[in-house]
């Protein structure tokens, strides 16, 4: 019982930290992007205010049960992703619920949220949501391919489906990181990350110009609040996962922050520089170089 309670407490702390870290990342990146725009940018605590404000809305309308469940699924996806990733290698508090086969579960959770969201957005009924969900799902499947290939290559390379083990295998020096031991898989994975992070050129799903705001068009008040919460958690979860897979994980919280920040900056640097792809263009893109890289990585380690 005490174990469970302690785990629960640790999980709570872990989620709380990662949520705030996600918001901090968000605030920081807004500031950085603003600089590239030649602006000052919003204060770094703006994401907290936004999320508070959204929850504080006095009214909300729902279009049905699925509309209500959509954000819940999304949050479940985000939490699920995070909770099965060990955030800091060697830390009990941030070990979360990692277990030997967690990599597979995490990969499932990464896409679980999207699907839930699709249902909710679909019930919202706004054609923009529907179109964006269609775009999102097709784009998702396309970047899933290089990502899956990359993960497979890693699994083969490390003979493990446990993230903790993969991290453990990368300890002992910078050159042990996957990025150096298996650059092909890493680049395939990082391309997939670009797609996952929904930054340009892969943000057609949320594009305010092409389709106003995409799936969450009808989401408001606490529904949106849940989505915002999830966005913070899910973002950091993805980054932590990628850090664990390719950058050797983190042994303390500062290393984690630094590495995830660097990973996120990759998306940002590319995102500000390029306009967005159309859906079929991004599909074509992911099925091109990244998939080939992933395939090559798999093949190399198969051999």
């Amino acid at each position, binding site marked *: 019982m005490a174990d469970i309670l302690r785990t629960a407490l640790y999980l709570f702390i872990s989620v709380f930290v990662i949520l705030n870290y996600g918001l901090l990342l968000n605030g920081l990146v807004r500031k950085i992007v603003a600089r590239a725009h030649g602006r000052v940018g919003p204060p770094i605590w703006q994401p907290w205010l936004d999320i508070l404000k959204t929850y504080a809305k006095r009214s909300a309308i729902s279009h049905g049960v699925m509309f209500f469940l959509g954000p819940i699924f999304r949050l479940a996806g985000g939490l699920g992703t995070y909770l099965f990733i060990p955030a800091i290698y060697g830390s009990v508090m941030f070990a979360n619920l990692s277990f030997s086969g967690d990599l597979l579960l995490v990969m499932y959770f990464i896409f679980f949220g999207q699907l839930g969201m699709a249902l909710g957005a679909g019930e919202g009924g706004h054609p923009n949501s529907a179109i964006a969900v269609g*775009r999102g799902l097709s784009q998702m499947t396309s970047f899933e391919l290089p990502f899956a290939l990359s993960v497979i290559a890693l699994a083969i390379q490390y003979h493990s489906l446990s993230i903790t083990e993969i991290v453990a295998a990368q300890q002992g020096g910078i050159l042990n990181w996957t990025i150096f031991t298996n650059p092909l898989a890493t680049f395939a994975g990082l391309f997939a990350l670009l797609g996952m992070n929904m930054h340009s*050129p892969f943000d057609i799903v949320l594009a305010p*110009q*092409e389709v106003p705001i995409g799936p969450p068009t009808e989401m408001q008040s606490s529904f949106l609040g849940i989505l915002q919460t999830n966005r913070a958690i899910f973002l950091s979860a993805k980054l932590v996962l990628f850090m664990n897979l390719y950058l050797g994980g983190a042994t303390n919280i500062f290393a984690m922050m630094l590495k995830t920040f660097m990973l996120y900056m990759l998306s940002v640097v590319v995102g500000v520089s390029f306009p*967005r792809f159309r859906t079929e263009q991004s599909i074509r893109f992911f099925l091109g170089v990244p998939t080939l890289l992933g395939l090559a990585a798999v093949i190399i380690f198969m051999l």
Partner: protein
Amino acid sequence: MFTPDRSKYPEIVDGKAVIDLDSGKYLKLWQGPQHPGVTGNMSLELIVCGDEVVDCKTHVGYLHRGFEKLMERRKFIQNFPIVCRICVPEPDTNEYLYAAAVEEVAGIKIPEQAKWLRTLNMEMSRLTSYLMWIGGHAGAFGLGPIGQWAVTHRDYMLDLFEEWTGGRVYHMYMIPGGVRNILPDGFDRRLEDTLQKIEKLMSEIEKVMLNNAVFKMRAVGLGIITKDMIDRYGVVGPIARAAGMKRDVRKNSPYLMYEHLDFDIITGTKSDAYERLLVRFREMFQSIDLIRQIMKYIDNSKNIHTKLPNVLHWKIPAGETYVKAESTRGEYGYFVVTDGSELPRRVYVRGPSYSHAVALLEDLIINVNIADVAGLMTSLHTYPPEIER
């Protein structure tokens, strides 16, 4: 002759495509009234099949203020402040054309210096409008920074307008008979500073936007307008020029002081969204060059205004005329009919994007990916306030 490829329609009955919305194959999508891709409000009623547009109806009228009616019950001078509101992002062309039309029917000759100042105003306004446009165009494809930079530089131009005319957006400067004020002291220096800033910006835009792989993938081949479509749809301005037509009112029927300026008509060949961007981009440099040329002729000591009859009861003899000028979007014209009274009988405003916005867009948009609709619209450079007036 261009006819859009409507092969994706399910069936053609009596030469008309029938789209059964209930079949589940099609989705009706409303874009607008407010859409980030358009300056102003208009809406597109799109029928989409998957990601592609199979039919489009444009709906305008969200910004209709009844200008032409209002002008019929205002005195000639009272119309001068309101015409600039017809086209919000590019007000000065309206001011010039109204003033020029009134001067022509009233038989007023304006001093040469006033013409120079007007020319300067028009070119600065062209540059300002293009800056706003290029920001919007980049934004329509998701290239945010260009919009941020370009609108900021547009603001630097507005600062100049503000110190020159006293107004930021609406300048109300080209009053019938001439202009309202001379240039302030030190204006030429600040203008040159701003032009240099804009030139720097343009080099940055060239690197980030024009030489951008993704941008090219989106814009090249988008919305190709063939030569025979130009006349068929009444297309004017940079769009016609991007199709290789040497059509520029400034050169073809010179007005103000353009015949004394040294410039060429910039044309393109490929006539897609990217080519139109290139033409406009080069025209921005052309504008900067023209502004520099014009500044050599500005002399603050010269007369800038012809004394008008008392404007409170100014009657203009019966007559009619059509004057036109090259705006950023092409031939902008005013058709003015007077009947000898204190009020104009009819003022018709010929906005250049009128035909782009409705007739051309509706056909050009067929088979375009909905993600590109915004880019296509900005590429046609429509300003709904001037369509609806």
